[in-house]
C-alpha cells in the first residue's frame, strides 16, 4: 500500500471516528486529516483490522491517564504504552502527535506546562522502548480540551490524559 492510499484510508477512518470520539477537534488538530474527508471505506481499516487506526484507538488504547497534578506514568499506563510501542513498530508508516491534557482544576498557564510534561513522559517512554523520536511530536492543550465536562473527579480523571494521535507523513 503506498503512502497516498494509506492517507486516504486514514482520513476516512478518522472521519468515522469523529462521530463518536470527542477527542477529535476539527480546526485545532495538528494535522487536518479531516479536511475534505469523505465517508467511504467502511469495510476497510475497521476496528477488526489490527493495522487500522480504529484498532489502535480501541484495542491497543490511544491514551494514558494521570493522577492529580502529576506526570508519572501508572502501571496500567505503561502497559498501554507497551502496546502502542508494538503497534507503532509494526506500523512504521505512521507518525504520532502526543497530546497532553489537564483537568480544569488549575490555572491556565500551569496546565499548559503540566500537559506538556505529561505528553513528554509518554514520548520519552515510547522512545525508550524503541519508537524513533523522529516519528513523535508533542503538544499540550492544558485544560482547554476536556472530553468529559462534569466538575467531578469521575470526569477529571478522564481529562488528565495524554492521547497518542496517529498521523501520516509527518516524518518525511
Amino acid at each position, binding site marked *: 500500500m503506498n503512502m497516498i492510499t494509506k492517507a486516504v484510508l486514514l482520513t476516512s477512518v478518522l472521519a468515522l471516528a469523529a462521530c463518536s470520539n470527542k477527542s477529535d477537534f476539527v480546526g485545532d488538530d495538528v494535522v487536518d486529516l479531516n479536511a475534505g474527508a469523505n465517508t467511504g471505506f467502511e469495510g476497510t481499516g475497521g476496528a477488526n483490522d489490527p493495522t487500522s487506526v480504529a484498532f489502535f484507538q480501541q484495542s491497543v488504547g490511544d491514551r494514558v491517564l494521570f493522577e492529580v497534578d502529576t506526570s508519572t506514568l501508572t502501571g496500567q499506563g505503561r502497559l498501554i504504552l507497551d502496546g502502542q510501542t508494538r503497534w507503532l513498530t509494526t506500523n512504521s508508516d505512521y507518525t504520532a502527535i502526543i497530546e497532553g491534557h489537564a483537568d480544569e482544576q488549575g490555572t491556565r*498557564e*500551569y496546565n*499548559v506546562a503540566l500537559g506538556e510534561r505529561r505528553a513528554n*513522559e509518554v514520548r520519552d517512554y515510547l522512545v525508550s522502548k524503541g519508537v524513533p523520536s523522529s516519528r513523535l511530536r508533542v503538544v499540550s492543550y*492544558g485544560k482547554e480540551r476536556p472530553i468529559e*465536562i462534569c466538575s467531578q473527579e469521575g470526569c477529571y480523571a478522564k481529562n488528565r490524559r495524554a492521547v497518542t494521535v496517529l498521523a501520516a507523513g509527518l516524518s518525511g
Partner: protein
Amino acid sequence: MTLRVLMAVVAICVLPVIAWAQNGPLRIEITEGVVEPMPFAAPNFVPESGAANEFAERLARVVVSDLAGTGLFREVPRDAYISQITSFDAPVQYVDWKAINAQALVTGAVNVSGSNLSVKFRVYDVFSGTEIGSGLQFAGTTQGWRRMAHKVADQVYARITGEQPYFDSRVVYVSEQGPKDKRRKRLAIMDYDGANVQYLTGSEHLVLAPRFSPTGDRVLYTSYETGFPRIYVLEVGSVKRRVLESQDGSMSFAPRFSPDGRTVVYSLARGGNTDIFRMDVASGSSVRLTSGPAIETAPSYSPDGSRIVFESDRSGSQQIYIMSANGGEAKRISFGKGRYGTPVWSPRGDLIAFTKQSKGRFHIGVMRTDGSEERLLTASFLDEGPTWSPNGRVIMFTRETQGSAGSASLYSVDISGRNLKRIPTEGGASDPSWSPLQR
C-alpha cells in the same frame, strides 16, 4: 484610534496641574474604612445645539455609570431633583442640591457640529458651595462620545478621590462560545465597562491569554494556529498579526511586555520542562532566565522593569517567586497554605495580584511584594487570571462556573475586596487584560 488623533484636551481656564489636587473639603479617601458611597447628582448635560440633544442624556448616563460603578459613589435618584440644570454657566442653586443630599454635583454641556462633538463639565462640592477644580472641555467625534463621557468621569473621580482614574481604558480578552468540550475562543477588545466590543481574530484556532502592550497599541497572545501553542503579536489598529516565537519542537505561551514595550517575557516548554525566557522584540533574540526541571511560567514585570514575578513548582507545588529581570536567583514570596499562580505586579508597584487554590476553591488575592499582608478578595469554584486597572485600585479576572453547563465570565473587584461585579459581555469571556489609561 482616530479619536486619539482628533481628541484635543482644552482647559477652559488654564490652571496648573497641581490645582487639581486642591479639592476643598469634599474628598473620598479610599481606604479600607470607606463603606458608605458618596451621594452625587449628574443631571443630563445641557445641549448647546440641536444635534447635541441625543447626547445630553447618554453622556450623563455613562458618567453616572462610571462613578456609581466604583462603589464609592451613589447617584441621587433623578426624580428627587428640585432644580434642573438648563444653563452650564448659570450659578448653581446649591440649596436645591443640598436638600436632596447630593454631596457632589456634576454638570455638563455638549455641542455637536457635523461629526465633531465637544463636552465641557464642572464639579461642585454642594455642601461647601464651591467648585472643585475648574471647568474642562474635551473635543472629539460623535462616534467617540462614550470616551468623552469616560474622560469627564475620570476627572470627577480623580478630583474627589485624589487617585489616578481608570474609566477611559479598554480590556482585551478571550470571547468564548459553546460548551466546555466544544468551546470556541477568539480575541476581543472592549471598553472597560463592556461596551464597544470588537473581535480581533476568528475562532477557528484556539487562542489564550492576550496581554496589552504598555501603550495599548499591541497585544501579545498565544494561538494554536500552527497546531502548537505559539506567541503572536497583534497590532490593535490594523488587526495585523505576526508570530513572535516559533522555535520548532517547542511551545511558547504566557507572554507579557516589559514596561518599555521592547521586551517580551514568556514561557517556553520543551522536552517536559517549562522555563522563562526574555525576547528582544526588535531583533527576536532571546535569553533564558530560569533553568531546572520545574515548571516556571506566568512571568510579569515590575513597573520599573527591574524585576520579574513568576510562578514555579520547584518547591513541589505552585508558588510565587521574584527574580531580577536578568534572571538568576529567585526569592519565594508566597508561603500560605495552598497553591499560588498567575502573579501580576500592580501598576503602582506595591502589590502582587495572584490566583490561589486552596481546599478545592479558587481565590483572587493580593500580597505585598515581600509576600506579607496576603488578602483574598474572592472565592469561587474557579477564579483565575487577575489583571490590574490602570490605577491599581481594581482587579478584573475570569470566573468559571462548574458543571457541564459551566461558562466563563469577567468580574471585577476593588482591592479592598468590595464591589465584586460581573462585566457584561455577549457570550462567555475569559483572560482579561486591562489597558493603560488612553490618551
